[in-house]
């Protein structure tokens, strides 16, 4: 087991360096001058321009800039935003809880509904419900989620007025950020200050539509995967044996079949983390959700080099770490993978 983890960890290192090389070169190739972006429309005399380039180390040869970059990373310096002057790590850690909260809610939504729908569809194979689930999941899988968000806003926020259009919380509530998770913060705040009692419900209302939008594609994938994996397992001899022993149908399905059916589903769930981070870019843009996705898009549009570079680096690192953990868990669950070369 230990050597399996070490082997996987060994694969991570070249990937990580590859990503630093990619983020480094991506950003150097962007057309336009970073100094001009910083000073905006005002013109700058050449001397000050050169001095600014020198101060930021942008006048060195590229390979030296790369070495500087990696050395800084090794020291934990991710640079400051050119626009806000706040360091990238602080910005990332301030905004990340918003994305994480949204992603967790979306994942819970997708896993709970997806597993249920998939299991019931597999049990009632060929029924109207089964066809409905398969049709809906194919539709969900094909959904352009930025449009889906607009349609949900149009219907639930504009027509019915049930949910707010944008943001995480109504401006009327002044919630001290303690954990960065709005649901927890509002809960804590309202338990101490009764005037904030509506804040939790308000935060929940803000969260509903983005959760649905971000969770739609994972939901569709999980429902499909659960169904086909359940169908596979339900055909196995040991399921028939369990039935023949006279076990109750629910015990056969949830204890005997589901456990084994879950293995491929878990892999799919792990793979959705990358999908969620990509989806967060669009979802956060539509709902003005102050998270990592919107931050990165804004940074790209403002040519905020350090933010784009290290923001993408942080997101990619996160994705490979999660995939690493999923790999390990998969190895724990399945010895055949652990011992394969």
């Amino acid at each position: 087991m230990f050597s399996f983890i070490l082997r996987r960890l060994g694969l991570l290192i070249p990937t990580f360096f590859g990503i630093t090389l990619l983020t480094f070169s991506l950003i150097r190739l962007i057309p336009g001058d970073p100094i001009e972006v910083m000073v905006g429309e005002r013109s700058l005399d050449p001397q000050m321009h050169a001095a600014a380039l020198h101060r930021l180390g942008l006048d060195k040869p590229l390979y030296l800039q790369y070495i500087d970059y990696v050395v800084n990373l090794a020291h934990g310096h991710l640079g400051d935003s050119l626009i806000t002057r706040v360091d990238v790590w602080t910005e990332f850690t301030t905004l990340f809880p918003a994305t994480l909260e949204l992603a967790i809610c979306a994942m819970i939504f997708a896993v709970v509904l997806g597993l249920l729908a998939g299991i019931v569809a597999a049990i009632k194979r060929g029924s109207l419900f089964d066809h409905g689930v398969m049709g809906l999941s194919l539709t969900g899988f094909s959904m352009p989620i930025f449009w889906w968000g607009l349609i949900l806003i149009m219907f639930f926020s504009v027509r019915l007025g049930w949910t707010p259009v944008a943001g995480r919380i109504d401006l009327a509530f002044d919630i001290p950020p303690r954990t960065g998770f709005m649901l927890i913060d509002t809960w804590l705040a309202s338990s101490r200050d009764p005037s904030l009692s509506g804040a939790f419900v308000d935060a929940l209302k803000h969260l509903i539509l983005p959760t649905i939008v971000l969770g739609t594609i994972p939901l569709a994938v999980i429902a499909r995967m659960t169904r086909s994996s359940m169908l596979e397992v339900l055909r196995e001899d040991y399921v028939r044996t369990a039935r023949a022993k006279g076990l109750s149908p629910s015990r056969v399905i949830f204890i005997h079949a589901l456990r084994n059916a879950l293995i491929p589903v878990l892999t799919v769930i792990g793979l959705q983390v990358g999908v969620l981070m990509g989806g967060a870019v669009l979802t956060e843009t539509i709902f003005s959700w102050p998270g990592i996705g919107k931050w990165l898009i804004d940074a790209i549009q403002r040519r905020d080099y350090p933010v784009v570079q290290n923001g993408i680096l942080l997101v990619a690192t996160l994705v490979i770490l999660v995939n690493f953990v999923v790999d390990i868990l998969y190895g724990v669950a399945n010895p055949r993978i652990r011992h394969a070369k």
Partner: protein
Amino acid sequence: MTQTQNAAPDEAAVVYPSPFKEFWQGFSHNKGAVVGLAFMTLILLAAILAPWIAPYSPIEQYRDHMLVPPVWSDGGTSQFLLGTDEAGRDILSRLIWGARQSLFIGLSSVLMALIPGVVGGLLSAFFPKLLGSSIMRLMDVLMALPSLLLAVAIVAILGPGLINSIIAISVVSLPAYVRLTRASAMTELNRDYVTAARVSGAGLLRLMFVTVLPNCLAPLIVHATMSFSSAIIDAAALGFLGLGVQPPTPEWGMMLASARDYIERAWWVVSLPGLTILLSVLAINLMGDGLRDALDPKLKRAA
């Protein structure tokens, strides 16, 4: 869907259908696939015939007819069947012309990912040691980045536009082709027929492209169909973020970017372009399911 046909009773008596007929039998067995094919044929025809069938120019602005609703709702006129947008442009004509952009981006990015992906996959299967593992590490790097984020970053560097969207989308979809080709080529490489070809002196290129590749095609074709649909979505997403095809060229995703401001008073401006994207993507995915049933029965139960 069901697994009925079991054993062939008498091999000699079986008349094998032509490959195409056999393919069509498998494909048309899946009704959704046939519907998808019909819809995509329609979209393809609309794209090709756009200059002749679109009622108006997609960029002509009728200033007296701004935000006219579709013909079936109150205030709609038969002059503009699907209504007009905020600048008084005919939505139906923009959708028809937009099909050109979407299909073009989809097709070209599939080709631009498929060809290098297949070559890279074959190379890494034939030379698994140094070359193969470095190709795979490179693909790991690309896969670690969420695809849309990578596409956005690439477009941000190259600048927005049609060609750059295609490049971005093909780079993003490259790793899947490499991995898929490598995986199926690796299994084929252990087969006896490959050894036989090698022993009888087939060269490397012949082994790669004539002996092994044809036997890896089925999953590749199915995946190419699926990635065609995701290319359309990604292109629309880039357009929506203002990084794709630039105005005034009509593109489905870009039509939605400007529609956001009219969400409160013009549902048709918001709904119709997205519905077109959804239906096209759905149709292609249905076709992909049918292709899988017809070409790759092994995969049938997997997805």
